[in-house]
């Protein structure tokens, strides 16, 4: 356990020392400034419309917030996949892993330590971005989106799933192949998710099932859709007013599936790393 925590510490320290955290902070603040500026002007024009019913104002603000969350979701996916993409394969190739793996710690501690370290980095990023958005919309528009806790937890699960895939890929594949594979899988889930939505809207069950099947292969996009579903006013999602209002709401089974999927991917990663020649 001590070895695991030391490796996790080393991983977070690496992100800090190699200025990954700094880049996240600077670009995150740039993102939030842009979002705050846009949100300020949207809010201002809404306030100028004296006759607008409060419900309609809420819809527009909600849409802006969901657009922000959607962008954060995408950035979080990039962060989850890219930060650990070479942590295993790169250290095996360079030989850096040799001095770690000959210390009196289990190989599983190395892998889980890295996983925990990158999870902490992801959590810090998500906290900064989602926290920033919530702060901006609260201060500027006095607006609080519903079910943020549930929504953000689902996004975090989505990030964790992709992070785990990226680490697992590195125990077997080269860095580039691993990156291509994880983004490729994410792409499958992404288009599958949209097929499911459009298929449902036009009433074509074949397209819908193809989409659900893709979501079973990689459940990341379903988690985002479920998160977006929870973080908008009920009327808005029932009327499908925005691209963030899913026509086909992923079931709660998908959450269990995604969690199990992550656990199995981590298990495979541990097994692969255990038997690998370093």
């Amino acid at each position: 356990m001590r070895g695991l925590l030391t490796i996790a510490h080393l991983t977070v320290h690496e992100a800090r020392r190699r200025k990954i955290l700094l880049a996240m902070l600077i670009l995150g603040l740039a993102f939030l400034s842009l979002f705050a500026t846009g949100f300020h002007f949207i809010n201002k024009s809404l306030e100028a419309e004296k006759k607008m019913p409060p419900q309609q104002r809420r819809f527009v603000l909600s849409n802006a917030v969901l657009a922000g969350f959607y962008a954060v979701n995408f950035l979080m996916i990039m962060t989850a996949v890219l930060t650990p993409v070479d942590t295993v394969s790169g250290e095996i190739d360079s030989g850096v892993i040799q001095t770690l793996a000959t210390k009196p710690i289990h190989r599983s501690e190395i892998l889980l330590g890295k996983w925990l370290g990158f999870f902490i980095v992801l959590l810090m990023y998500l906290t900064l971005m989602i926290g920033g958005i919530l702060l901006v919309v609260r201060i500027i528009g006095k607006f609080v989106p519903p079910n943020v806790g549930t929504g953000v937890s689902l996004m975090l699960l989505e990030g964790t799933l992709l992070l785990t895939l990226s680490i697992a890929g590195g125990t077997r594949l080269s860095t580039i192949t691993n990156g291509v594979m994880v983004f490729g899988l994410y792409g499958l889930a992404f288009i599958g998710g949209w097929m499911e939505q459009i298929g449902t809207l036009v009433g074509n069950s074949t397209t819908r099932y193809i989409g659900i099947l893709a979501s079973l292969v990689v459940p990341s996009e379903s988690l985002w859709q479920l998160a977006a579903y929870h973080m908008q006013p009920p009327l808005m999602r029932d009327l499908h007013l925005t691209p963030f209002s899913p026509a086909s709401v992923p079931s709660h089974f998908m959450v269990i599936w995604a969690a199990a999927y992550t656990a199995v991917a981590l298990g495979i990663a541990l097994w692969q790393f255990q038997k690998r020649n370093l």
Partner: protein
Amino acid sequence: MADCVIETRGLRKQFGEKTAVSDLTLSVRRGEVFGFLGPNGGGKTTSIKMLLGLVKPTSGEAQVLSAPLGDIKARGKIGFLPEHFRFHDWLTGREFLGFHGRLYHMESNPLAARIEELLARVDLMDAADRKMHEYSKGMLQRIGLAQALLNEPELLFLDEPTSGLDPLGRLLVRDIIKELRAQGTAVFLNSHLLGEVEISCDRVAFVKKGRVVREMAFHEQKDRVDVELKLGPITSEILAGLSAFGGKPLLHNGHVRLQVSGEDKLPEIACWLVNRGVKVYQLGATRKSLETVFLEIMGEDERPG
């Protein structure tokens, strides 16, 4: 055997079609400096990696510090400096030693003291707080050596420890090996720098195509002298008499050749021959260098790796 730190029998590693190590059988005793010699591509690094648990053998048996390969507890008593000495170079030298000390489960106070001691020993006190990507190759190797010594190991693996070092650096490594031997630490030295091995090691094993082709205790070999004599006349009685001084004498182009156990035998031989009225036209002695032994063992078929 309780006094062995490494014992292997028929250790083999196959990567697909390629056999990296075909049959590694050797033993290393507690407290000795053991040289592991062989050409590049001869399976030396794969052998070390198997002994350290980095690579799983395809077959064979082995024990390191009386435990199976890769045993966690045994690893706590082992130090290792890998061949390419690539480390997390975004750390400073001091941080690097700190992290690795924690991986050895060392407590923070003794660890801090040990780090200072080692930084001074490998002459990196000035550079301790600089990031390692600014280090020269020699500095990286020295900090790597300090890392391998953190836990005061019972068994130290050095994979080509002086290949990146200037003469002063080599001297430092040589001195450290000497100190370790005095403290009773066994050193497994993987090298193709024969001069280095000749100075540092007690015993050597020659590996060729992943097989130990010869083991020899070094000090015995070091004292051996090849003697070449030109005599007149050479009788079977003289040859039989000469065999009392060492190995069996051989006749070659009118010269007698034999191997004796030390230089002190030379005047004895001369005296014995003169007393018997044998004319001595030439008495030459050569000591076999490790290089000669190496080339003899590796044979003509071994091309530069």
